């Protein structure tokens, strides 16, 4: 069974796959969804940490 969130993530995976030119076998989708959910949760945890607007990313390019 997939819930509403799963369905919306599946739609996102389908659209993103099209945009990226990836052919995603329907059989792979549950695993892709699980991994994407986990990564988005980690990303949300990072995003929830307030940083000042002028915070520099770690890699700094030198011309």
């Amino acid at each position: 069974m997939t819930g509403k969130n799963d369905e919306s993530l599946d739609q996102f995976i389908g659209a993103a796959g099209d945009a990226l030119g990836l052919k995603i076998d329907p059989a792979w989708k549950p695993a892709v969804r699980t991994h994407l959910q986990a990564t988005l949760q980690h990303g949300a945890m990072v995003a929830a940490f307030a940083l000042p607007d002028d915070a520099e990313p770690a890699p700094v390019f030198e011309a």
Partner: protein
Amino acid sequence: MDWASASDIAAAVARGQSAYSVVEAALERIATRNPLLNAFTATVADRARVRARAIDDARAAGKPLGPLAGVPFAVKNLFDIEGLPTLAGSKINRDHAPAARDSPLIERLEAAGAVLVGALNMGEYAYDFTGENVHEGPSRNPHDTTRMTGGSSGGSGGAVAGGLVPLALGSDTNGSIRVPSSFCGIFGLKPTYGRLSRARTFPFVGSFDHLGPFARTAKDLALAYDAMQGHDPDDPVCADRPAEPAAPSLDRGAERLRIAVAGGYFRKGAFPEAREAVDRVAKALNVQREIEIPEAERARSAAYVITATEGAALHLDRLRSRANDFDPAVRDRLIAGAMVPAAMVVQAQKFRRWYRARVLELFKDVDVILAPATPCTAPAIGQQTFMLDGVETPLRPNIGIYTQPISFIGLPVVAVPLPLQPLPIGVQVIAAPWREDVALRVAHALEQAGVAAAPRPVF
């Protein structure tokens, strides 16, 4: 010389032991034990014999020998070896042309007298903590061949712990040297980010990729590490700083160092054996102090996001053209990584700078931080989940919960093995950036005190 350390082998060769016979014996051990351990994916026997003869000829001619003379070693198969395609654990790379030249770390070890004998199994494209590989079969833990070596440098762990070679090289992006060191019960060094050249190796996540050695003694780690140091313009990340040899200060002991145990996040989730290992090390070093590495859990999350997305970017074209040739477990993670919003990645890199500054503050008060290397001892091959803090959790992505917040900011770490029964487990000895010498000193002191040791497996 079956279980001899690299330094003992080099000393014996300097005294007159034939390097050829040492290398031949290593090749025989590989032939005998590799069908069980599945650590090697290729051997380079002819090349090794030629090189070993050259060392014997040099000694006969009275020429000076290097500090690793006659020491057989092997490398994770993401290192370029002249004449072989660089597999990086994949099926897809089997179609690559053979490498034209060895990676610089192989060249530097061989310049010190070591002898390359082969290439080692690894998790596909290094996106792995298990040491399993669907194309080659799993590397197997020498202490219990039904169990994982840990990954992704699984063959490196198995080859050294199994006594096939005394020295191996691997890579560590999120824990891939420290995890197999822990599960296989050997010493592993993940140097400071930017210390050792990564040129002519197959990458995974440029932001976090490190290379380093595995051995059965801290002294061997130091000898190999010293031989590999030095700037290399072929790796833009490799720091332009002079070599800072660690071996000369190895015997200085740990008494005058300020050492603390990492609390909070690094205590949460650890199995009793992981806690026991840290407690034993802390007791041996007379450490009572506990410190909190701030936001370590968030650091792990940020490492997770950057890994998923950089890994996906690296492999996107292959995912388009050859998706069915990937290990499905790796492919599905990479596909997901390609779909993560860019804003999250940028935020993760901003957080990385913030976190680095906080952790560097800690190193004003301490020289060394101790933490578990893995939450548990080696799980069974094929195991999918484990109980983390009372919750059934997917195993594969979570073996590195304690290693990821450390490599995220490139700190040098020696994983030291505690010979617990029935299986060994490792402890991370973490030092400030560019202080590998301090971490190696502590590892050596623990070994001298009889607390850390690479247990010899029974075959």
